[in-house]
Structure formats: C-alpha cells, structure tokens
C-alpha cells in the first residue's frame, strides 16, 4: 500500500486541492442547510423574518432618504427603487460580513478537525443566496403591485443577466471576504477598520440613489467600485432606469475573477497554520 497522505510544513503557492473540495460536497450542502434552518430557530415568526427585514429597511429608507433628505429615485415609486437596491446590497454585505470572519468564528471547529476550510465561506455565499431569492420574491410582489396600479416601468432583455449579476456579487463578496479573513487572523486591527468600511461602502454604491444623480464627469469615480455596475445593471434590467454599460460590467467581472484568484491562494496559504496565530 502506498502512502496516501503527506503532511508538510508548506504547500506550493498555487497548490489548491479542488478535488478535495469536491469530495466534501455533501458537507457543503449540509452547511448550507444548517445556515438556513438554524437562523430563525426559536423565533415565533420564523422564516417570515426573511421578508420583514428588507421590508422594514425599505420603510426606513423611504422615511430618511426619500422623505427627509429628498433624494431622487429616478421617478420610480420609492418602495420599488429602494427594495431593488437593498436586495442586491444586502446580499453582498451579508456575504462579506460573514465570510470575512470565517477563521475567527469557526476557530473552535477548525481547531478540532480538518476539512477543506474553503467549504465554509462557499456555503455562506450559497446559503445567503437562498435568502436573497426569498427577498427577490418580495421585490417581485411589489413590482407586480405597481404594474397593476399602472406605474410605468420598462423591464427589458437585460433582466436575463440577473443570474450573472448575482454570480458577480457572490464572487466579489467571497473574494473580499476570504482575503479579509486571512489577513485578520493574526492582526485584528484590520477587522475593526473593516466593519467601518462596509457600512460606508454602501454610500459609495448607488443603492439609495441612482448613479445619474452624480455629475457625469464624476461618475467614473463611482464606477471604480465594482459593485456599482452590478446594481445599476440590475435596476436597468428590471425597471429600465439607471446606467448600463457592457464596459463597466466587464470591469466588475474582471475585478471579481482576479480577486477570487488572489483570495483563494491567500486563504489556502493561511488555512494551514492559522490555528497557531488566531
């Protein structure tokens, strides 16, 4: 019988064992299931919290940004406009927040048993997808309501890009998340800075305002943010407002691919010895 396992101090930089991750696919699906069913255990309202959270946020935005601050919504009904932004942004932010603390929150279990650590952030992104799907339903209800009462919205073919947009969001949040997670195992300074950055990031993304409110010559600054193009494309495809350009979207996609590659390599390097420094 040949040796099947070798345990060495260091792996090569790009030695990522994707086959091993595939072998643990059952664990992946169990993690996703666990995340979903345990989230609202011992609550009376149960899964309806999936709806209540975005609904309340929307109402709050309507009062603060729409009512008090009077920010433009591109002539769309406020609930519809805000909900579109919230559904996308919330998915990105939730994934990012959760994946960025992968090592610190899972140190108890990581310290006891080995399995490919990448399964954890991957399953986080997947389980939040279910959540996003449910919230998307809420968006569709609101959408249909406004169609019935005769508000003019102009959905177009670009709505078919939706799965691709979600894929980019998932990739971006995963990429950022695992890089942050890897960088904060030993020195926690960054994680303090990071929670602060995520809350500011939303304002640098056209969630509560349309990109068109920015002066045209400053819009390129906003477009550097890879999330911008995705949310604008979503709004454009579903409601026909906002800015859409293939160029910006390819930039976001390219950004995501590079980020994911860096993220996986860094994460893979850190996971081997993070228990000593966490």
């Amino acid at each position, binding site marked *: *019988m*040949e*040796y*099947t*396992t*070798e*345990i*060495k*101090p*260091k792996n090569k930089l790009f030695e990522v064992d994707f086959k091993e991750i595939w*072998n*643990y696919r*059952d*664990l992946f*699906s*169990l993690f996703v299931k*666990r995340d979903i*069913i*345990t989230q609202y*255990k*011992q609550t009376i309202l149960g899964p309806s919290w999936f709806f209540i959270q975005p609904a309340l946020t929307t109402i709050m935005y309507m009062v603060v940004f729409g009512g008090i601050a009077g920010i433009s919504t591109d002539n769309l009904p406020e609930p519809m406009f805000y909900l579109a932004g919230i559904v996308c942004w919330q998915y990105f932010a939730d994934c990012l927040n959760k994946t960025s603390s992968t090592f610190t929150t899972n140190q*108890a*279990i*990581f*310290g*006891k*048993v*080995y*399995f490919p650590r990448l399964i954890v952030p991957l399953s986080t992104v997947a389980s939040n997808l279910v959540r996003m799907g449910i919230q998307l339903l809420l968006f569709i209800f609101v959408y249909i309501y406004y169609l019935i009462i005769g508000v003019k919205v102009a959905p177009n073919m670009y709505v078919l890009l939706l799965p691709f947009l979600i894929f980019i969001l998932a990739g971006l949040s995963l990429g950022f998340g695992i890089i942050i997670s890897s960088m904060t195992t*030993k*020195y926690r300074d960054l994680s303090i800075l990071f929670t602060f950055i995520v809350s500011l990031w939303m304002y640098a993304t056209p969630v509560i305002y349309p990109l068109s409110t920015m002066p045209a010559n400053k819009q390129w600054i906003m477009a550097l943010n890879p999330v911008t193009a995705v949310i604008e494309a979503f709004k454009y495809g579903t409601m026909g407002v906002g800015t859409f350009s293939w160029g910006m979207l390819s930039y976001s996609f390219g950004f995501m691919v590079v980020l994911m590659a860096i993220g996986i390599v860094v994460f893979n390097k850190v996971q*081997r*010895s993070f*228990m*000593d*420094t966490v």
Partner: protein
Amino acid sequence: MNTAIEFENISKQYRLGLVSTQTLSHDLNRWWKTNILGKEDPYLKIGDVNDRATKGSSDYVWALKDINFKVDQGDVLGIIGKNGAGKSTLLKILSKVTAPSTGIIRAKGRIASLLEVGTGFHPEMTGRENIYMNGAIMGMTKAEITRKLDEIVDFSGVERYIDTPAKRYSSGMTVRLGFAIAAHLDPEILVVDEVLAVGDAEFQKKAIGKMQDVARGEGRTVLFVSHNMPAVQTLCTKGIILKNGMVSFSGGVHEAIKNYLDDSSYDTEQVNAQVKIINKALSISKLTINDLETNKIMFDYGENILKVGIEGEVEIPFNMSVEIMLYDDTETLVAMYSPTHLIGHTHNLKAGKYKIEENICFPSTLCNGDYYLSVRLSQMNIEHVAEINKLVKIIVNKNISPDTGVGFDKSYYGNFILNGK
C-alpha cells in the same frame, strides 16, 4: 509489518506571549529573509526546549522537536506524557489542524480524529442532524451516513434524544454521540485524544471495546492519548512517552507506562516531599520503612513484613487511625491495610511528640511489578488529618514459583496469584 504512519523530523515551533508590534517586526523580518532574500527562516534556528515550569530566555519554544517514529498497521499506540509535553500538538499536526514547522508525516489511508468529540455539534440542531453534520465534517458522504445511522444511534445509546436539539444533551451524551459517529467512520487511522474522561463507566468500557475491535479485528491503526493509565494499558499494544516535546521512550506499552510513572514521580523527590497535612495541629517529622529512611524497597519471594514508622508532634490529643493503601503502577488501588476497621485498633496520641508503628504483612502471592504505598492518618470517624502519597515504592521481582520456575509477572497474572487448597 506494514508501516501505517511515519513521522520524520517533525518539529513545531510556537511563539510565546502576546501578539504585538514586536511580533509584526519578526513577521516582516521572516518574510523579507525567506521570500525576498530566499534564505532560511531565521527564527527556526532559535527556540528553547519546551519545559513549561522553567523560565526561558527565548520567545520561541519547540512544542515538538525532531519527532521520528513509525507506527505499524494494526498497532494501538498510546502516547503518554505530562501536561504540555506535546501530545495534543502531535495529534493536531497528524489530523491536519495545523501544519508542522519542519519535517514530514506520511500516512496510508483516511485519518479520522476524535480531538474532543462533539465539539463540532451545532447546539440548535437535533442529534440526527448533527450525526449527518459531524459525519460530513469528518469526510463521510451522506449515503454512507444514512447506511450507518441505525448503528450509530444504537451504539451511542441516546436514541430517546435523537430528535432533540444537541443543546439539551448532557456532556456525556454529547461525547457518546460524537464517539459513536467517529467510531463508525471506518478510517484506516483513528486518532483519539482524551475522550473517555466524560463518559460513564459503561460507555468507557464500550468505547475501549470498540477501539480494540477496530484495531485487532479490522487491522486499523489507533493513536490514543490519555492520562488514564489503566485505559492505556488495556487498549494499547505500543507506547511512546513524550517529554518536553521529544520522544523519551518508545516500545511496548507496559514498559512505557512503567517508565513514565517512574519518571514522573520518582526522579529526585524525597520521601517527605509527598506529605500533605490537612489538620495543622499535627506535624510529621520522620518517616521510616523497616527503620530506614528510604523510598524504595525490594521484596523477595515469600511473605514480607514491612514496618512503617511515623514520627512527629501533635498539639492536641488525637485518636488516630492509620490506613495504608497499596497501589500498582497504573495507580489502581490493589489492597488496603486498615487495623481500625479490621480489629478496632487506634493510636491514642497525647499532646506532644508521638511515634506510630505499623507492621504490615504482604502475601507471598503478590506478583512481580512495581507498587506504591500511601498512608492516610485520620481522627477516627471525624476527619482525615494527613495523607502521605507514595511513601515508598515496592519492587517485587523475585516472585518465582520454586516448583516450576515460572515468574509471576503482574502484567500477565494480575496483582495476586490465587492459591489452591
């Protein structure tokens, strides 16, 4: 014999103290030297031996240093050593929780580790859900788990609770379920760290039985870490002792245990060092064995009489009873001498100096091995006054039948030989 695991020059270095700007400067230096200049890691050259009790000069210690050994297939290896000797670190490296600093481990087949089982349980999920979860964490597929579900539930003995969230479980039940899952994992190599401590006697027996089956019946390899010497002795075939991060002994399990207990309690300590006074009104100034201040005694074949003498002072009168316990080298109580309970004999001590002597008769059938005597002084029916642990080590090595020439070794014949009539 086929080698199942091979440890080659395994070392593990840890940095002590807090994470601070100084660690950052070390990290930057390390990164510069290894990644940019392409030299060796400068901090791997330094580091102290890992002795937790002494103050060291370096911030770096070697939790493990140059570990080299092989484990044959089907062996049950007991890893013993004091706290902080590196046992758990070794198992963590083997189960890939953390990477070694240097060296390489080669292993054949799937490695499953039970490092504190049940810790992967999600408190909100039911026992059944956790079985799937835990099984999958350890590398099983859903189909595999479904096939073994009944067996696992049955073995764990928590069937009534199987659809209740794990947070309602007692700690023992959690361990039972956790162990049951791991035991049915069918790994080629099973790594077990101190899991039996929480389970009750029935379960411990079951768990040890299962591990024996795994090793003997199915030819798998088990690595077992425990401070429970009787458990190590029953379960293991081989033993290694870790001391300050290095292998200090490797061989058969009996020799290993003997070596370890010898080493841990008898290197330099004086007889008086093991005295524990509970009631301060009493003091002990002198302990003698057969009128000698010794801590080692040899028994020849035949009946042996041992005179235990205790001298000291009491401030108030005591009605003292003496109990003398005989322990074997796994710290299991073998026999007891208690004249108070046997014939109602006590010592009436008046305030001032005292001297107690007890003559104990040891049977000729005591088997070859190492034993320890401990003494407990108590005020009859009131309280323990003083304890003297490991007063003397008794080495029996000449219990050889004069008729057949057979030597009666403890590891084979038990503590006593029974006579016929």
